[in-house]
């Protein structure tokens, strides 16, 4: 084979490829640690210290501080790992669906019901 082609953009979608992985490693590594309840507790107890321990970039820390999912993704966060962090914030996949699309949660749920019609 030859050099992989540049892939076409997919609207509204950041594909988590090598480019994003390079950017996001520190953030994703922190989020992976949240499989452990003890680590989730440590994050809750001192969020800034926990982020510092994992060496988050300023962009990543800022996105986390602002609970801004789209900014976390831009900063290289992978949704599978981010889901664990977002769980700490009490946000499930429908909450973050609404946040990212600028809807209320009820509107977002309704949109999904309508997709089935």
């Amino acid at each position, binding site marked *: 084979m030859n050099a*992989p082609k540049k*892939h*076409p953009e*997919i*609207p*509204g*979608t*950041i*594909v*988590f*490829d*090598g480019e994003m*992985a390079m950017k996001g*490693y520190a953030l*994703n*590594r922190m*989020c*992976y640690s*949240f*499989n*452990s*309840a003890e680590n*989730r507790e440590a994050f809750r107890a001192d969020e800034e210290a926990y982020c510092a321990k994992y060496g988050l970039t300023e962009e990543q820390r800022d996105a986390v501080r602002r609970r801004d*999912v*789209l900014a976390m*993704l831009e900063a290289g966060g*992978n*949704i*599978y*790992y*981010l*889901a*664990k962090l*977002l*769980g*700490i914030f009490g946000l*499930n*996949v*429908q909450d*973050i*669906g609404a946040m*990212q*699309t600028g809807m209320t949660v009820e509107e*977002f749920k309704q*949109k*999904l*019901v309508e*997709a*089935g019609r």
Partner: protein
Amino acid sequence: MAKIVGAIMTSHVPMIGRAIANRNLQQDPYFKPFFDGLHPVRDWLARVKPDVAVLIYNDHGLNFFLDNLPTFAVGAAPVYHNADEGWGLPPFGSFAGDPRLSWHVIECLIEDEFDIATCQQVVVDHAFSIPMLLLWPDERPVRTVPILINTVQHPLPSPVRCAKFGRAIGRALESYEEDIRIVVVGTGGLSHQLEGTRAGFINKAFDLECIDSLATDPSRLTRYTSRELVALAGAQGVEILNWITARAALEGAVREIHRNYHIPISNTAAGTLLLEPLAA
């Protein structure tokens, strides 16, 4: 010799866990259309009584991290524990393994030039536990072999590669010397996307095309690249790779025993498909 009695494809949406923990919810209008689709599958299982379930699924950041993320992995442990994934789903206990069968599959796959990772310990996530509980709600009568496919970190394996992998899994299982009955289970999908401004994306037409193709002509799905699957099925809808792999484990013509499709469970189009090899 071992025999593959069928392939079951089903969704593994975490929200289903709620209706597993609280069975009353299965009669709730939100969950009922999905759970009703499982009864024919459970009836079939009660009839064919498989000894082993081979689960083809993707880890969601519980067992694997980006420091060592395999494209394909095969579990070879005596038991698999389900664990806390960090966002609130309670673990559903443990599942018996079949390490001797696992090692047989590993030997065959390496001989067939699949560069799998071998995993003598695997913590299984909801993509394994939820389908197990959907298929066997009351008891755990089967031993299991987990086979994991990367859907987390691009580049993902292509549908073509997954189909070849599935066929090699099928050959490996059929060459096992013990007289056991094996069901192959592909989990995940159908269309959904959790992240980005396209979150909540559903593609009913494509999902129905997938179910039709897998039932009648699976080669139609291998025209796509994995990137195209992301575009068509959503970032997580690419879990259809697990369905493609499981389907490919069946050789020759198949009989469709049952299908079900319902939108939505949580952010996801939920589906179930049961196929039996015609020769069976």
